[in-house]
């Protein structure tokens, strides 16, 4: 089995509202899987189903090849978007309690907690109450609670909200480290910058339905539309530009006569860029010739627009 989690036609209604409609996903092991979508797309509902907080009306969920059962809870770590801790409970006690709820023994939890406290630079907070900590510190504790029982599957819902850039970076490194150690990670967000950096696979939910999923690089390839950024060094840029604009669809262009530098972006009818490159080399000195790859954000927007267009 190469998938840690498979959902098969999962559907969930709340009254008349459909939160998830026939969503099937395959989440590969040992990778970071981005679960994307605008607010209200159904991400949280899907995550809650995986955590067995709610149950699907239709469809099945498989965890590591087995139908999802209550005992799988101990193998899942979940950092919800709406998160918090008992304010008046001491840090040490609280983490031990939550770890024990995940099935860890007290002594084992204590041992691992020490490791994490050192790793995340958390000193003598053991006897501090959560309400005495800053928000960022509390978030670190929250992160430890999520990973302490060394789950096979980690689910982070908007993990970086509430962190300052330095701590956000530290947490990002920890997430990558956990993946390298063998964990599979579901990463739910609507902030696309972090997706580019982290995710190997993505799925896009929109209005309760999955509209796109797969390996991010494959999706990007599929969403490329033969647009090239070109930089040329030439004496007669204006003439060349005119010549090119008769043959190609040029979106932007700029000619700096002083530097003899012509920059332009154009779209080819097909992915075959060889003839164009050959032609350009014969006419000018080619400084750069790059096919632009759409950002996750662009893909996201286009996918949503396409979807809306079909309706």
């Amino acid at each position, binding site marked *: 089995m190469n998938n840690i989690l498979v959902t098969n036609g999962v559907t969930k209604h709340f009254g008349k509202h459909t939160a998830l409609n026939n969503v099937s996903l395959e989440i590969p092991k040992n990778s970071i899987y981005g679960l994307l979508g605008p607010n209200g797309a159904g991400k949280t509902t899907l995550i809650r189903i995986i955590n067995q907080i709610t149950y699907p009306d239709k469809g099945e969920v498989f965890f590591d090849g087995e139908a999802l059962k209550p005992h799988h809870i101990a193998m899942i770590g979940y950092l919800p978007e*709406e*998160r918090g801790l*008992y304010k*008046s409970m001491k840090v040490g006690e609280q983490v031990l*309690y939550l770890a024990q709820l995940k*099935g860890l023994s007290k002594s084992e939890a204590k041992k691992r907690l020490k490791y994490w406290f050192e790793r995340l630079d958390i000193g003598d907070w053991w006897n501090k109450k959560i309400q005495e900590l800053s928000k960022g510190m509390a978030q670190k504790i929250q992160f430890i609670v999520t990973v302490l029982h060394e789950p096979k599957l980690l689910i982070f819902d908007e993990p970086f909200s509430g962190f300052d850039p330095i701590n956000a970076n530290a947490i990002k490194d920890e997430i990558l480290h956990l993946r390298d150690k063998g964990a599979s990670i579901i990463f739910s967000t609507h902030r696309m910058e972090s997706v580019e950096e982290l995710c190997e696979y993505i799925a896009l939910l929109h209005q309760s339905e999955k509209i796109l999923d797969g390996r991010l690089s494959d999706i990007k390839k599929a969403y490329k539309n033969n647009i090239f950024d070109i930089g040329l060094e030439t004496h007669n840029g204006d003439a060349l530009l005119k010549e090119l604009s008769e043959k190609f669809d040029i979106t932007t262009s700029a000619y700096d006569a002083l530097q003899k530098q012509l920059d332009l972006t154009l779209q080819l009818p097909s992915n075959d860029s060889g003839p164009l490159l050959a032609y350009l080399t014969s006419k000018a000195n080619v400084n750069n010739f790059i096919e632009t790859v759409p950002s996750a954000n662009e893909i996201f927007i286009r996918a949503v627009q396409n979807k809306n267009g079909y309706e």
Partner: protein
Amino acid sequence: MNKLPLIIRREYLAKVRNKSFVIMTFLSPILMVAMVVLIAYLTKLNDNEKRVIAVLNESDYFSNEFLTTESTSYVNFRDIDLETAKDSTSNLGYYGLLYIPKASDLEQVAEKSFFYSKDAPSTAVLSYLESVFEERLRQRRLVQLGVTTEDFAAIDEQFEINISTFAGEQNLKGINEIKAFIGGAFGYLIMMFIIIYGGFVMRSVIEEKTSRIIEVIISSVKPFQLMMGKIIGTALAGVTQFAIWVVSAGLLFLIAFAIFDIDPTVVNSDPNFASSMGGDMAPKIPNGNEMAEEYLKELFKLPLALLLFSFVIYFILGYLIYSSIYAAIGAAVDNETDTQQFIFPIIMPLMLAIYVGFFSVFSNPHGPIAVGFSLFPLTSPIVMLMRLPGGIGENGVPLWQFILSILLLLATFVAIVWLAAKIYRVGILMYGKKPTYKELFKWLRY
């Protein structure tokens, strides 16, 4: 591994370590004892103030009827006129002067007798004086009418109707009320416990919602487990608190009474206590040791084992039913101010049970209202306990009613906990809007 004990333990510790809980636990008995001791002490101080009342008796009808008591003593003036007597009374700082003039007949005496004092006299003093005065004059009148002193003593005998059951068992008057009162105390305890600790459960649920830890927890345990753990943990904390209250209040009373040298019966025998609880139906406090013994004997005949057993059953089931409703309310709202509209319908059956209990069970423990309310599950824990001191079976609660009441309570318990758990499960993840009853009903089907 079973997670319920973990949750119970946390809820228990979170409760008993809470500062305000600790303060309440240890301060309440001290405050309560201090209050009672203060009242008893002040009463004693008050009584210690000796009053001296001067009596100027010119008539032949009185000789030495006014007897010195613990708080009042009497000084007889002789052979002085009224004005001099008034002056001396006020000069000597006496409380007042009772003047009984010389007159030919009783009516004249009654008409012309006066009590002079600086301020208006206290009713206690006046009523004592009046009773002696009236008694003496009545006696005199009867003598005039030819009744001898022996006959007069014979008049004083009380005439009463004795009561008995058809089976021939003699009953003491008011014993039913005393019994219902004892049951009522148990019922009252249940109500207080439900209101106080049910509220704690609710607040604890709201706290988990507002601190947003709830989703972290229910990704590890079932909402139902969390709810039950919370309810049980809070109940244990409540039992601990009650136990500390009872033990420490008892100890403190002993110590305080020893220190201040107060006779505990001053407090216990306060008739106002009993009558304020039971209204007009409160039993008359029997006078005379013999009567008291009779009542005590009757009280020892109470089915104590049955009472305790049913107290535990009704307590547990009643508390579970109500506190799971409280938990559901806590889950449905975002903050405590939104709870009002839901709390009222819970408190109502409890209040109803107490009032119906005190009025209809006291007057007729087996009347239709009493039976109805002792079967209805939301009121039965309180009302049935008021009826039970009469025992089960003949003269008491019919066995079928007792069993039916417990069965109904059990069925309600299952149904309510199931419903509450559903509302709880949906509610804890809902933020931002104040739900209506209609929405709560919709949640049941999610």
